[in-house]
């Protein structure tokens, strides 16, 4: 295709100019890839902290428990659920849970609290609860010699009720059968800090919580982790098909507000980056326009011999896109070591960020196709966009003006 040949050779005709234009495209691409990698990396970090703290990658409930939690909406046939989870090779861990609001008493103080019953053996395979114990130790599933179960309480509750290890805490709630539930537990551990999502939680061993709430062996939730969290939605739909009577939700649905906020924050960042790249491209626009004006006579000849105006637009477009392809190619070579370094090593940020009691201070990048392709698409789109004005300028060249002696 000769038009491509013309475009290709025109790039090499103005070496210095093409080099400068190419460099700014290349620079724009590298910048965009790095920022996308870091952005993806830090969102990945936040998602990890978030999902590993408690939510998990996928949750399973009865009906609409997620939207309207009621104590009686329980998962009954747990053997079936566990069989499905065990059979799926991408599921790396699962844990059953029960929840209920309660009133917590200690001494003469009362506070509303949230009872969370967890399986002491399975829960640590899904969440970081064990690492979040800041005082005392992770509890055991069985009651002590006097029949008291141990509870682990959130840091906020510990402060509000002035509780310390070994103190008694009284919980009052309503059981699934409508009865008044109340019992005394011993504080065996304190969890997280004052900003943790579970600062007002009372963790009970699963049997204790089920007994307290008269749930028998039923649970409200199964939370699970999968191999690669990016696959969680696909896995969720596979599980949903296998468990038609239950509701399977990826974390994006469980924490839809957080997810939406994150998505719009991401878009905002991309938008900012897009503007930066666009400004870089204004310079490119200027160069392309200049190269068109310099070749007025040539375009005039092309028009005279019968090139349709559209073909000239195409030629200018092709030249810019070709240059963009070269620039992106070189950009990929240059940026890849940096992306690998960001992904493998990363760097420390001066101020640590606290995510529900888990600190993170290490920025890391992410290396995947999206990190390369999204900026590539943007650069191509921008290059195409900015070649339109020069392209139309070329198409509008009148052969008379270009070729006349005046």
């Amino acid at each position, binding site marked *: 295709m000769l038009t491509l040949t013309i475009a290709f050779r025109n790039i090499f005709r103005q070496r210095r100019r093409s080099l400068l234009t190419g460099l700014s495209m290349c620079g724009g691409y590298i910048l965009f890839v790095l920022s996308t990698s870091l952005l993806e990396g830090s969102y990945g970090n936040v998602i990890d902290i978030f999902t590993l703290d408690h939510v998990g990658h996928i949750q399973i409930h009865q009906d609409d428990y997620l939207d309207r939690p009621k104590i009686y909406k329980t998962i009954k046939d747990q053997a079936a659920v566990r069989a499905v989870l065990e059979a799926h090779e991408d599921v790396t861990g699962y844990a059953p849970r029960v929840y209920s609001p309660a009133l917590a008493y200690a001494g003469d103080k009362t506070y509303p609290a949230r009872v969370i019953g967890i399986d002491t053996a399975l829960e640590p395979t899904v969440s970081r609860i064990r690492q979040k114990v800041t005082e005392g130790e992770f509890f055991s599933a069985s009651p002590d010699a006097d029949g008291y179960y141990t509870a682990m309480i959130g840091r906020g509750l510990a402060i509000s009720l002035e509780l310390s290890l070994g103190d008694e805490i009284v919980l009052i709630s309503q059981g699934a059968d409508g009865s008044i539930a109340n019992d005394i537990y011993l504080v065996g551990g304190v969890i997280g800090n004052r900003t943790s999502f579970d600062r007002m939680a009372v963790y009970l061993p699963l049997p204790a919580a089920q007994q307290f709430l008269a749930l028998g062996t039923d649970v409200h939730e199964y939370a699970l982790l999968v191999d690669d969290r990016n696959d969680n939605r696909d896995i969720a739909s596979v599980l949903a098909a296998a468990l038609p009577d239950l509701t399977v939700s990826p974390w994006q649905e469980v924490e839809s507000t957080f997810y939406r906020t994150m998505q719009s924050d991401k878009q905002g960042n991309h938008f900012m980056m897009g503007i930066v790249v666009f400004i870089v491209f204004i310079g490119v626009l200027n160069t392309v326009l200049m190269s068109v004006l310099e070749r007025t*006579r040539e375009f005039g000849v092309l028009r005279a011999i019968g090139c349709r105006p559209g073909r000239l637009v195409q030629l200018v477009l092709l030249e810019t896109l070709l240059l963009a392809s070269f620039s992106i190619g070189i950009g990929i070579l240059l940026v890849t070591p940096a992306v690998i370094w960001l992904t493998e090593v990363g760097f420390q940020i001066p101020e640590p960020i606290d995510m529900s009691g888990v600190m993170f201070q290490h920025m890391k990048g992410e290396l995947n196709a999206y990190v390369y392709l999204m900026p590539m698409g943007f650069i191509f789109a921008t290059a195409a966009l900015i070649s339109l004005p020069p392209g139309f300028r070329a198409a509008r060249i009148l052969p008379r003006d270009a070729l006349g002696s005046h």
Partner: protein
Amino acid sequence: MAEHLIETRNLYRKFGSDETEVTALDHVSITIEQGEFTAIIGPSGSGKTTLLHLIGGLDEPDGGDVLLDGANIAEMSGNELSDFRRDHIGFIFQAYNLIPVLSAEENIEYIMLLQGRPAAERKARVRDMLHTVGLDGLGERRPAQLSGGQQQRVAVARAMASNPQIILADEPTANLDSHTGISLLETMRELNQSLNMTFVFSTHDEKIMERATRLIHLTDGHVEKDERK
């Protein structure tokens, strides 16, 4: 009534406005027949270039019509006119006719590519054309590696390549020394005779005019004399 290959009716073209207004062509009506070898002559500023541009549809008249083979080019859309030029008219300009990044061969081939002709046919015709204009073996050179006369020969070859009915040439020899100019014109004349192809060219050069079969004299935008030899 037999149609003429080229007919202009009261062709009128002015440039500028008010005080600066210049009438470049003043109601020019001429007809040119298939196979003629016509020179348009006249002093500088007499309207030669303007007339050739209007005939080739490179410019629009302020009045009057251009009919090519009976078709009024004013009635064609932009793309139709482009396609018409591509298929029916060959252009040769005074200089800088060629696309600098393409070799002589590619310059000739490009117009056939625009016509959508198959590759084998294009290649064969390129070789043919180069031979016809006496440039065997120089096909791979870029315009910058060719002399002015050779470049004009490539331009002639390109104009011929699309197999047009009409070749319009605006002072094709003006940038050449007189020997090279005459030899280029002789090539054009041979093509005119062997293929019965119609040439309309402008010139200042006495030696070149001598070779035309028809002379149209322009002065201040109107036809002063029209002689057939």
